[in-house]
């Protein structure tokens, strides 16, 4: 033992030495003055008045400016830094959103809604650090790169009709800004996974472990955002530092059936929740790479005021905060974990009730003792979130496919009467409102028709609108942009802007696959530059500044997005162009034929001939016939009893007719081919529509689908296959988007679910036949699977996808394994990795030619072996 122990000791010594050494190295690197790459993770929880819960994940990575950080990274995602360098991005924000932020009940004044409430679909804006003439090229390349990075159809923002350059109404305004939205983009796990890939711990450890896909996508609203700022563009060969901020905002309804059942009468008791009940997961320790890892619980001003009120009413002798071992109780609610710190908002000007923030440090928890924050309400509370000064909404007016009008209505929320930020300069109290609206070119806006109503009274435009900037749309080139600054009196209760438009016609190629669904007008942005959403929580130790709290302190103008509008445009019959071509051509042909006949006609000759005939007294009917045929042929017809040579003539005519018919048939064939393709895609479009009708519109559009459709225009032959694939893809996506049970069962076309159910049913009915002896069991057997599968479909859409994905993965592995087995059988195991690297599975291998194998780098001998073996197999 002693002998054994000695080397161990020695080793320990060496080890400690090693460590000291490494520590010294590390320290020296630190002391060089080079700031290290840092990562922060934080989670904010906030109860919302309508029994929901706001969860806001905030991850921040930063890379300091350095000479080589552009190429070498330790924590910061390489892809993002390369992106910033390649496209010289100064600032960029990309958001994927599903659902609409409910400004009325979830608030519109805090910094969370004003910077994290985003329009549905994708929104991307970027500021470039390049000369003006290069910006558009950079933007186009950036959209392509981002679409590859995030598996989204962001590349549709490439075309100049899809993006605009706001001048001053969009908050980070500058001349180098480009702004684009894709309101119809569906958001799903496909987008979340690459987003998570940018975090050093991904969703393997730390707070991001909570990101359980089914619970997130079950939420009422979720917005996944990526914001990056590059700081201090390097002057002497230094690469810029980058701050990457990734946030995910989810509004969830805590699952509180027990509570509601128990106290059904008390409707106002807020549901109790815990992290494990809303996400199904707990936090087991922090991500070791994070500098700080905190969870915050925020009680906003309204709630705090309400709680205080309740206290006063209820009992004067309100017991002080009591802390037991694990819980922390307050007279009105109970927390399952003791907060590490409590912050109270500083200098709240607007109300005397500052909001309260509870801070929990995840660091203290571990796998054996996971962090699971829970909140149980003891008394019913009703409160309101702080609203933006005006609530903006937008709607369409008019009917028909010709013209309409857009109306933006602003209603005073009445909540904040004394506008602090308002302008008191000249006696009158004024409220400044910026409006930024982009309209696609096919919605042709008449800017002169802009009308303003204040308190339902029409006002002169010049009285209200202080500044206006309009860049009219150009057909198929650029969208129309309207930027307005309104000055409204403070006492305004409602204001409205209307503007009329004509609906344009699109070229047949420009219609999306689901043309009948309508076209989206992106959200308008209404911002209040004089109001700043900021909450200041003073921290004692400025060293340990949390990025989330400093984000709160930033004075960001209050912003809100309006709804996306859906404008129906006239959709043509997509097979029409070919019909038009055919019909005009026929008319032309007829015209030419008759013109030539008329020119060639010899009237006198014909008359004489007819007279001759009459003289010969042929019967009336043959005469008529001959007359008719004469007319048809455009010349005098011969009498039936003409020269004997006519038989051969008849033959040649016959031959000609046959040729003519053949030619026509050929033309017809081509027509069918082309038209058929058109028709088929139209039919598909119709199918898409009929399918869509059963489900909320927004959720339908697939991302791949668009691309597929684009291809479909070109590839006629593959249409059936493509459509099949499409249905599948759509179905998967559908499953992701929560949908009611009814809809699933209704939409029998939903290939996967339908098939699954059917299969279950079939197996249910077929299995029992041998076991006829016990009918009850049979019944349950038959009934269960179907029901279960439906239940799975509705309540947990995500695992299904996960399951299919794992299945797919498994299948792939299996195939790979078979490649491996195959190669092993040939004694060529050493090449297995080659095939794996190229992701060649058995099905692919079967189709590989000699040249393909050559390209893989397989030498001649093994190549021949593989090909021979494949041939013998196949």
């Amino acid at each position: 033992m002693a002998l054994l122990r000695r080397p161990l000791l020695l080793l320990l010594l060496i080890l400690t030495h090693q460590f000291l050494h490494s520590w010294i190295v590390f320290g020296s690197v630190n002391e060089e003055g080079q700031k290290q790459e840092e990562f922060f993770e934080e989670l904010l929880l906030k109860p919302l008045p309508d029994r929901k819960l706001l969860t806001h994940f905030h991850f921040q990575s930063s890379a300091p400016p350095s000479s080589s950080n552009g190429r070498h990274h330790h924590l910061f995602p390489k892809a993002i830094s390369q992106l910033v360098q390649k496209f010289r991005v100064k600032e960029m924000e990309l958001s994927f959103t599903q659902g609409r932020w409910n400004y009325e009940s979830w608030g519109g004044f805090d910094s969370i809604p004003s910077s994290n409430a985003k329009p549905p679909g994708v929104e991307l804006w970027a500021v470039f650090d390049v000369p003006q003439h290069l910006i558009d090229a950079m933007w186009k390349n950036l959209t392509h790169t981002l679409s590859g990075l995030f598996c989204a159809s962001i590349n549709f923002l490439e075309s100049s009709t899809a993006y605009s350059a706001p001048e001053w109404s969009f908050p980070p305004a500058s001349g180098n800004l480009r702004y684009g939205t894709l309101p119809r983009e569906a958001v799903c796990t496909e987008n979340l996974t690459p987003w998570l890939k940018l975090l050093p711990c991904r969703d393997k450890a730390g707070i991001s472990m909570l990101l359980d896909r089914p619970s997130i996508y079950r939420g009422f609203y979720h917005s996944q955002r990526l914001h990056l700022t590059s700081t201090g563009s390097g002057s002497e060969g230094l690469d810029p530092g980058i701050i990457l901020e990734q946030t995910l905002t989810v509004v969830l309804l805590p699952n509180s059936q027990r509570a509601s059942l128990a106290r059904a009468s008390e409707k106002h008791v807020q549901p109790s929740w815990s992290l494990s009940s809303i996400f199904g997961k707990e936090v087991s320790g922090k991500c070791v790479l994070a500098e700080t890892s905190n969870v915050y619980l925020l009680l906003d001003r309204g709630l705090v005021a309400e709680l205080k009120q309740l206290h006063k009413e209820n009992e004067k002798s309100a017991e002080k905060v009591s802390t037991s071992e694990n819980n922390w109780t307050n007279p009105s609610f109970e927390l399952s974990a003791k907060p590490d710190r409590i912050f109270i908002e500083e200098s709240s000007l607007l109300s005397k009730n500052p909001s309260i923030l509870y801070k929990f440090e995840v660091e203290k928890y571990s796998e054996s003792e996971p962090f699971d924050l829970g909140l149980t309400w003891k008394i019913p509370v009703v409160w309101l979130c702080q609203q933006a000064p005006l609530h903006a909404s937008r709607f369409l007016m008019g009917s028909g496919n010709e013209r309409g009008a857009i109306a933006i209505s602003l209603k005073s929320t009445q909540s904040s009467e004394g506008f602090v930020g308002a302008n008191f300069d000249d006696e009158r109290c004024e409220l400044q409102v910026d409006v930024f609206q982009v309209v696609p070119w096919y919605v042709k806006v008449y800017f002169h028709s802009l009308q303003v109503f204040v308190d339902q009274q029409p006002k002169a435009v010049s009285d209200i609108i202080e500044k206006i900037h309009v860049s009219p749309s150009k057909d198929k080139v650029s969208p129309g942009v309207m930027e307005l600054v309104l000055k409204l009196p403070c006492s305004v209760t409602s204001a409205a802007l209307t503007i009329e438009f004509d609906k344009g016609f699109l070229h047949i190629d420009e219609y999306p696959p689901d043309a009948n669904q309508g076209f989206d007008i992106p959200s308008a942005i209404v911002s209040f530059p004089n109001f700043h959403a900021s909450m200041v929580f003073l921290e004692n130790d400025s060293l340990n500044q949390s990025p989330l709290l400093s984000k709160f302190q930033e004075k960001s103008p209050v912003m809100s997005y309006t709804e996306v509008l859906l404008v129906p445009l006239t959709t043509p019959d997509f097979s029409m162009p070919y019909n038009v071509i055919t019909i005009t051509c026929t008319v032309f042909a007829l015209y030419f034929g008759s013109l030539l006949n008329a020119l060639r006609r010899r009237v006198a000759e014909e008359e004489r001939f007819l007279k001759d005939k009459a003289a010969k007294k042929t019967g009336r009917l043959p005469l008529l016939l001959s007359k008719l045929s004469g007319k048809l042929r455009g010349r005098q017809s011969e009498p039936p009893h003409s020269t004997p040579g006519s038989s051969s003539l008849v033959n040649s005519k016959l031959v000609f007719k046959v040729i003519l018919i053949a030619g026509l048939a050929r033309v017809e064939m081509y027509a069918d081919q082309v038209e058929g393709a058109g028709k088929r895609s139209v039919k598909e479009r119709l199918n898409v529509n009929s399918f869509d009708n059963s489900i909320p519109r927004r959720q339908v559009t697939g991302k791949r689908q668009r691309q597929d459709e684009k291809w479909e225009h070109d590839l006629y032959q593959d249409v059936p296959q493509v459509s099949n694939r499409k249905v599948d893809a759509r179905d998967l996506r559908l499953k992701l988007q929560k949908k009611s049970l009814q809809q699933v069962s209704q939409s029998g076309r939903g290939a996967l679910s339908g098939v699954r159910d059917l299969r279950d049913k079939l197996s249910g009915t077929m299995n029992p036949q041998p076991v006829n002896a016990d009918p009850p069991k049979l019944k349950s057997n038959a009934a269960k699977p179907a029901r279960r599968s439906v239940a799975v479909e509705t309540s947990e859409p995500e695992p299904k996808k996960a399951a299919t994905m794992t299945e797919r993965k498994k299948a792939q592995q299996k195939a790979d394994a078979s490649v491996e087995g195959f190669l092993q059988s040939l004694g060529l195991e050493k090449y297995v990795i080659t095939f794996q690297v190229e992701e060649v599975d058995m099905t692919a291998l079967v189709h590989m030619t000699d040249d393909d194998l050559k390209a893989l780098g397989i030498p001649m001998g093994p190549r021949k072996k593989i090909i021979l073996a494949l041939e013998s197999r196949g």
Partner: protein
Amino acid sequence: MAEISEAHDSDSSKLQDSGSEAPQRPESEPDFDPKTMRKTKPGLKRLFLTFSVLFSFLLGFPFLWKSVEIYRSPLPFREIDSLSTQLRSDNLLFPLHFHALFVGFDSEPDGLRRSILSEIAKLASQNPKCSNNYTLSVTVDLDSRCLRSPNLSPHSSTYQCGSITATDFVQNDDVAVDKRLASVFGGKTKEYSVAVVKGGSERAVVGKHRHAWLVVGDGSEVEVAAVKVAELLVKVFINGGREEGSIRNEFMPVGADGKIVLSFNLLNADPRDWVYDWDFEKIDDTLLAPMIEALAPVANISVESQVLYHTPKASFSYWNQKLESYVFSTKDLPFFVNSNEWHLDTSIAAGGRSKILQFAVYVPSAKECPLLLQLPNGEISKTNGFISPMWGGVVVWNPQGCLKDSEFKPSTKNIIPIQDLENMFEVFIGQFRQLFGFKSVNVYAGASGDWNLLPSERGFTEWELDVLSRQHTCFNLHSCATTLGSLSRLVQSLPRMIIMDEIGKQVKFSLEAAKLALSNASSGVYESSAASSSKASSLAEDAFFHPSIMSVSYYSFEHCFAVYSPFFLPVSMHVVLAALRELRRYKQENAKYLAWKAKANAAS
């Protein structure tokens, strides 16, 4: 013939105004048969009309054809063909000049030259694609005599007799000898020299530059040395010391645009156990930069690095009690790389067709800590790494003493010691060399004895770079020729495909670069020929993968036919038929008229 029957009275109709009187005429002239003859010249009006319509159609047709024509930039098809035939028929010949120097031997240089040449011919396997055109000069330097074997060789060595003596090789320091030889042989000429020196301890070394030396014992035969020299020239200087069949000869891990991105990844399998970081900048400057500089003519290399976390390997290792470590066998190696969790990422900075080589340092988690890779023969890999052709390499790095005591628990960030890092990067450089087809060991074991290869601090020695350049040129020129050939076949097979001017320009430049590379190669300027050949190949690829070619939306002939036939088929039918009928009628009428005229003449 149908017209004959009608024509009995149509003669009159041709006389438009006098038509009404026509029927009366036959009575006046008894020998006039109205069925076969007529008195007036047939009118030309209708004929003219129909034909003018027909001709206007025919005239309009070229305009229409021109208007629906698709723009095709003219491609130099003939030159493309000539390039590929040139490459195929007479092989690309790289001139190589060898110089064998025998110091202290007393023999005829001509005889030596012949024997070496015959040995070379025996050994040299002709590469079907690229071969070499070698010349050999032999110098025998014995005290005062200096004999050269082709006396007046155009590439005769600049070697001055007597500048090398056996005493130079007495010392055991190979590097010093190498330096000495470099100063002697070094010059502008790219000549491969071998010095065979009699006397001293036996050794055979290939230097860092383009020379080697062989020290033989006093009593050894000159023929044995000649055989060894011949083998050196063929196997090392021509073939780069690589074995046949290990990795395909012409394979180069260089992207189509001549770029390589070396992406280095440090993978912390489980950061909860320990987190290691590295000081990559230092390594980049000290180890990688010289190599990148050396390889500049062959490839444009850029380096990037990242550290990834939570990256377990995809397969399991098993515990080996004897080795006190976890062992991962070669059989499972394909499952080591976990593409689901290792987000090595293709680089955004790299262009579309550059080759990305991934090099990964895998730091195992505590559960699998000393992790060793087992070779197929049961031994433990010394480098603890493996390569995957076309993909890159992996090295497993075990944190010091991670297993030995369980208290070892570094919780915060550690830095991999610089010594370990250097070792690792030497392995990586070896792997990189392997990816290029070179050996990672410093000994070349030939049939007639071993040669020590002196490693260069730049990773690649000069003669290796020459081999690479030659091979790269050869490979690029062939790929350029095949790409251009398939492009021209494609373009010719699709007559209605749009070809942009840009493609034409790229093809032209590519051909020019290929020609330049060919001429440079034949004159022995390897670097520039490699550079221009890679340019040629990348331009050819650019042309072939031009987005306008990739799009399927070219306007096919069928489409054109389907759009225009509904109009032109019926209309042209009318026009042509009308013209034909009028023509035939005119002929018949004219024949009648002529018949009548003949008769009238005969009568008169």
